C-alpha cells in the first residue's frame, strides 16, 4: 500500500508539469487548429531563462519565473508573426514551419548556454513532509499549487473576458468571427503568446525537479503532447487530466516494468486512444486544415 501511494505522489508533480505543457499545445490547437511542434523547444528556452535569471542574475525565484514567461511569450509572438502569411493558405507548411522553429530554438539554446546544462537548487529547501510514512516534497506542493492557479486563470480568461470569448469564437468558426469584426491574427497571436508563457512556466518549475539541459524540452514535449491527446486535444480540462494521468501511469510502469516502462506507457496510451480516439474530454470544434 505504501509503495502504491508513494508511486502516485511521485507521479503527480511531474504530471502537473506535463499538464502545463499539454495546456500550451491545446491552447494553440484550440484557436488555430495547429500543432505547435516548437512547443517543447520553447519549454527548454523557458527553463534556461528561468534558471539564468534565478542563478546568474540572482533574482528571487518568482521574479525569475515571471521574467522568463515574459520572454517566451515574446518568442510565441514571433513564431505566430512568421507563420501568419501562411494562415488559411498552406497548412502543411505552417506545420513544418513550427518544426523548423523548434530546430532553430534548439541550436540557439546550445549556442547560448552550451551543451552541458545546469542543476537548479530547489527554491523551497525545506525537508519533505512525512505523512504516515509517505514522503511529500514541499516543492512538489508548490508546483501543484502554481499549476492549479495557472489553469484557473486561463479558464477565467477564456470564459470571462471579451478577448477570451473572441478567441473561443475564432476557434469555433473563424470566418464568422472575422465577419463580426474579430481580428483572427490577433487572436492567434495571443494564443501563441500564452502558449509560450505556459511553456516557460512548465520549464521553470521543472528545473529544480530535474536538470536543465538541451534535452529537457524533448522529454517533456513528447509527454505533454501525449497528455494533450489523451485528454482530448484542444480541451483545457483534458490537458490537466491527461497530464496527471500520464505522470501517474509513468510512475507505475516504472515500478512494474522497469526497463520496459516507457514502452508500456505508450502501449497503454495507444490502447486508450484506440478505444476513444477523441481522448477523455474529446471535443472536435476545430478543424481548419
Amino acid at each position, binding site marked *: 500500500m505504501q*509503495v502504491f501511494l508513494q*508511486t502516485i505522489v511521485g507521479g503527480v508533480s511531474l504530471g502537473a508539469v506535463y499538464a502545463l505543457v499539454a495546456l500550451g499545445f491545446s491552447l494553440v490547437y484550440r484557436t488555430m487548429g495547429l500543432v505547435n511542434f516548437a512547443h517543447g523547444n520553447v519549454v527548454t528556452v523557458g527553463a534556461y531563462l528561468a534558471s539564468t535569471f534565478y542563478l546568474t542574475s540572482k533574482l528571487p525565484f518568482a521574479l525569475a519565473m515571471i521574467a522568463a514567461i515574459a520572454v517566451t511569450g515574446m518568442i510565441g509572438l514571433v513564431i505566430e508573426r512568421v507563420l501568419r502569411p501562411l494562415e488559411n493558405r498552406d497548412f502543411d507548411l505552417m506545420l513544418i514551419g513550427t518544426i523548423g522553429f523548434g530546430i532553430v530554438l534548439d541550436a540557439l539554446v546550445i549556442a547560448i548556454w552550451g*551543451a*552541458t546544462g545546469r542543476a537548479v537548487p530547489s527554491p523551497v529547501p525545506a525537508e519533505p513532509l512525512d505523512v504516515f510514512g509517505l514522503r511529500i516534497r514541499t516543492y512538489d506542493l508548490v508546483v501543484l499549487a502554481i499549476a492549479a492557479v495557472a489553469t484557473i486563470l486561463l479558464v477565467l480568461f477564456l470564459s470571462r473576458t471579451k478577448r477570451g470569448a473572441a478567441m473561443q469564437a475564432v476557434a469555433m468558426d473563424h470566418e464568422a468571427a472575422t465577419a463580426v469584426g474579430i481580428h483572427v491574427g490577433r487572436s492567434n497571436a495571443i494564443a501563441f503568446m500564452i502558449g509560450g508563457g505556459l511553456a516557460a512556466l512548465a520549464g521553470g518549475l521543472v528545473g529544480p525537479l530535474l536538470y536543465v539541459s*538541451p534535452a529537457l524540452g524533448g522529454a517533456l514535449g513528447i509527454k505533454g503532447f501525449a497528455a494533450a491527446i489523451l485528454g482530448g486535444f484542444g480541451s483545457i480540462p483534458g490537458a490537466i487530466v491527461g497530464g496527471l494521468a500520464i505522470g501517474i501511469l509513468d510512475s507505475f510502469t516504472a515500478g512494474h516494468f*522497469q526497463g520496459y516502462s516507457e514502452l508500456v506507457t505508450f502501449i497503454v496510451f495507444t490502447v486508450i486512444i484506440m478505444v476513444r480516439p477523441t481522448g477523455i474530454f474529446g471535443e472536435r470544434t476545430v*478543424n481548419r486544415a
Partner: protein
Amino acid sequence: MPRLRATTIISVLLLMGAAACSAPGSNDDKATSGNGPIKIALVDAQSGQLSSLGAWELKGARLAVDEWNAAGGINGRQIQLDVFDDQGDPTTGTTLARKIDSENYLAMIGTAESAVTIAMAPILKQAEIPNITSGQSPGLVAVGSEFLFLNGPTSTTYDETLAKYVVDQQGLKTIAMITNNGSYGKGEHDAFLKSLKSRNITPVADQVVTTDQKDFSAVLTGIRQKNPQVIFVGAEEVESGLIVKQARDLGITVPFAGAAPQGTPVFLDTAGAKAAEKTIVSSPYLSNDVSDASKKFAAAYKAKYNEDAELHGAKAYDGTQIMLTALKSSNVGTGKALADAIRATKYQGLLGDFAFDQTGVGIFATSIGTIQNGKLVAVTG
C-alpha cells in the same frame, strides 16, 4: 487531427536529415601524402541528450591538439581536428564513419558512447582507420577490431575495483542495484553483478530503469523496504544525480556506490552536495590534484575554457596524446602501421600508465574515492 499529406511527411524527414548532417569536411586529398595538415576526425554528440559528454571530450582533445600544434605539429605538419556530431545516435555514427573514410581522415577520436563506437567499428575496421574511444563497455572489446582502442578501463575494471572495496574491505553484503537499460547502464549492470556473483552475493534488489526516466519513487520505495547497506547505481551523470536526490527525499540514508559518472561535478550538482555525501566512486581520475600532470592539465584546461577539468576531458586528452604520439613515432603512418604504433605506445597519462594489450585496452586499474563535504576525496589504503 489535421490530415498529413505524404509530401509533408517526406519534407519533415528531409528536414531532419538536413539537421543530421554536420560540419562539412574539406576535400583535401593531400592529407595522406607528405604535405598539408594531418586530418583527424573527432566524432561525438554535440547535440542531444549526450552532448555534455561530447562537449567534454571535444575540450580535452582540442587541448592536446593545440599543444602539439603550438609546438610545431608533427614532422612540420599541423594537425587539423574536425568535429562531427553523431547526436549520440549509432545510425548517425555509421553514416559519419563512411564520411570520414571518404574524406581521407587518418584517425578518429571518439566517441564517448559505447553503442555508437560499436556501430562504427566494422566500417572503420574495413577502412583501416584507427580510433580511440572514450566508451568503456566490455562490448567494445568483444568487437575484436585491431583498429579500436580505449582511452580508459572497461566497466569490468571499474566494478571489480568497486566490489573489492565495498564487499571485501568494508564488509557491506546487503547490496541493492539500480541500473539503466542504456548501453552504459547495461554494461555496469552485468559487470557489477558478475563481481558480486564471484563473491557469492546476490543483490537484495536489482532494478532497471529507462535512460530517460525522471521519477524513481516506485523503484526507490521498493528498495527502501529491502534495507540495503549500500546502493549501486549504474547510470549516467544526470540520471544518477536525480536518483540520489529523490532517494534522500524518500528518507533513504545509506551511501550510494558507482563508477566514473558519480565522481563528476554534474552528478554532485544534480544530486546536491548533501545528498551525494559518502558516495563511493570507482574512477581512474579522481580529482585534478592527484599528480603534477593532472595539476598542469587542469590549469591549462581552466585557462582555455574557464571551467574545471573532469574525467571525460582528461580521458580524451590522454587518448589524443596517444594518437598523436603514435602518429609521430610511425612517421605519420596510416592504417595498420598507425594501429601498430598505437599498440606499441607506452604513455604515462592522467588516468595512469597506458600499455595496450591485443584487445585495445590500455588501463586495468581504477582508484576508490568518496564524496566528503561536496568533494571527491581519494580513499587511502
